[in-house]
């Protein structure tokens, strides 16, 4: 290596800043991307508009009181009855059956995965739950009708056994389908609970069971409740399982062993019947749809708020 000092390079000419170009390309890109994002707002607006028009027309012909509180749903009879309660009670019955399965077992699975399972077991089991969630609802409906109902009929102990179409089979299967949602959301909520809380309790001599039930679950409660609310929303909105397995005739009963038609099953059946645009039959699709949308919308917003609340606390 040479030991002489090499002179510094000659001065470089002073740089000029280029004039700011208006960069229209950037602005166009941003506008296009904004439009893509605005599609979501347009979709919601579209849903509201689609539901509102025919519903308003419908309510012009059928008083709201009769619609909401009437107990007979025979829209295509003459004279027709437009009381939506049988559809609503059917939805409630099926949802209740689903919740009996998905809430305790979903939460149990979540607690197990979050607090008890070794990492290897967890890695193996989570995909299984994802598979459960990914099975098409037609398949679940088929399963309920073809395999679960006969078993229920065989093992039924008291009263009339379930009919071929019944709310119970549909509800139970729906519960299994929703179980992964409850499990996964609850597990997320529990994972967000800081390790410090658990460690403090363990250090005091608490057992795993106590830590899970008295420390972690209460700390994750808003996320867990959010998952329950979302489960209810999904159960209320589910169509194919009830369409296939629960029945096609409105039946205002609280007995899950009977056949009954839920709101969603009615909408699908009415849609299959190919009503002419503007007829009262066509409008019932939208009126019941509006009721369905409002119910699930309220639950969704509630659930979103709850999730936001628990995220804020820990982040």
């Amino acid at each position, binding site marked *: 290596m040479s030991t002489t000092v090499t002179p510094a390079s000659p001065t470089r000419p002073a740089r000029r800043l280029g004039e700011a170009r208006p960069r229209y390309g950037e602005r166009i890109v941003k506008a296009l991307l904004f439009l893509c994002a605005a599609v979501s707002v347009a979709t919601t607006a579209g849903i509201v508009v689609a539901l509102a028009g025919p519903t308003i027309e419908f309510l012009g012909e059928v008083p709201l009181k009769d619609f909401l509180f009437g107990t007979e749903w025979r829209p295509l009879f003459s004279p027709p009855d437009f009381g939506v309660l049988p559809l609503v009670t059917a939805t409630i019955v099926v949802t209740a059956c689903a919740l009996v399965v998905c809430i305790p077992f979903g939460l149990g699975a979540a*607690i197990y995965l979050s607090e008890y399972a070794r990492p290897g077991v967890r890695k193996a089991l989570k995909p299984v739950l994802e598979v459960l969630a990914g099975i098409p609802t037609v398949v679940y409906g088929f399963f309920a009708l073809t395999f679960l109902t006969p078993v229920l009929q065989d093992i039924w102990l008291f009263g009339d056994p379930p009919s071929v179409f019944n709310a119970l089979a549909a509800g139970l299967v729906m519960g299994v389908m929703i179980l992964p949602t409850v499990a996964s959301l609850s597990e997320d909520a529990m994972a967000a609970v800081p390790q410090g809380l658990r460690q403090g309790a363990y250090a005091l001599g608490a057992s795993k069971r106590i830590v899970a039930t008295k420390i972690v679950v209460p700390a994750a409660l808003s996320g867990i409740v959010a998952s329950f609310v979302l489960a209810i929303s999904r159960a209320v909105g589910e169509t194919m399982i009830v*369409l296939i397995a629960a029945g096609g005739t409105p039946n205002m009963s609280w007995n899950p062993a009977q056949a009954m038609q839920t709101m969603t099953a009615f909408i699908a059946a009415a849609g299959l019947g190919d009503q002419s645009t503007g007829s009262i039959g066509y409008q019932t699709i939208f009126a019941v749809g509006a009721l369905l949308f409002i119910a699930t919308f309220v639950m969704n917003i509630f659930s979103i708020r709850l999730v936001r609340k628990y995220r804020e606390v820990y982040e």
Partner: protein
Amino acid sequence: MSSTQIAPTSQRERVMGGLFRAALFVSLAVGILTLAWLIFSVVKEGWPRLSLDVLFHFPSSNPELAGAQSAIMGTIWVVGLTALITIPIGVGAAIYLEEYADRDRWWNRLIELNIQNLAAVPSIVYGILGLAFFVRGFLDLGQTVLAAALTLSLLVLPIVIISSREAIRSVPDSIRQGALALGATQWQTIWRQVLPASIPGMATGSILALSRAIGEAAPLVLLGGLTFITFNPEGLDSAFTVLPIQIFNWISRPQEEFHVLAAAAIVVLLVLLVAMNGIAIFLRNKYQRKW
């Protein structure tokens, strides 16, 4: 002074702890066993008719001759078109929300709230939307492939957006800073650095969204109905059926032979879904970058 002997686990705790653990096990077992029962029953039921006939024959009122070719081709057409529509829009929305949107502005918060809500709207409501605007109403497309694809695109759009956002978010900010410091514009940074780095995550998310679309029947019931389709789609304005609808069709028939056929078609559908999810998982494991 109290005892310094370490006591064994109390009797009560052993019982309660054991019971609790058992209860949790049962919870998991319910899901897993039901899944196993479901798959086993469906395969067993559909076994007699599981042959290439199911793939290549067309529906017929004679169960011996019936197959699901029109439904399979219909699924390919509809879901393929759905992918073409929903992926660009979903990725575009994700880029906007992650790279451009200022969270303080109310319209951006409204967009986010909308997406979260739409992800949980019942699928049949999307069918109502499609019925009102695509099949009849504004676009008046009739019961066609295009109307079905537009409807399904809106249905899975929230999933595409949410998973694409996660993929974009996982690209470290230092990459963006490095590109911007070199004098790249925001779009140049996104197009040349952020997007290429987030493609594996986006691909996985899109495949999962399309898996959902393949299995959907409820909205399409309102759009295409249970019409007896015995031909493959010929164009965007073609009438159509899809595999889940065909399965539903066969389930609704009283004859037992059609139920067997339905089970066979379900097996085809499940195999298709397993293949798609397998590809998604493969892509994720192979290309997912650990930053």
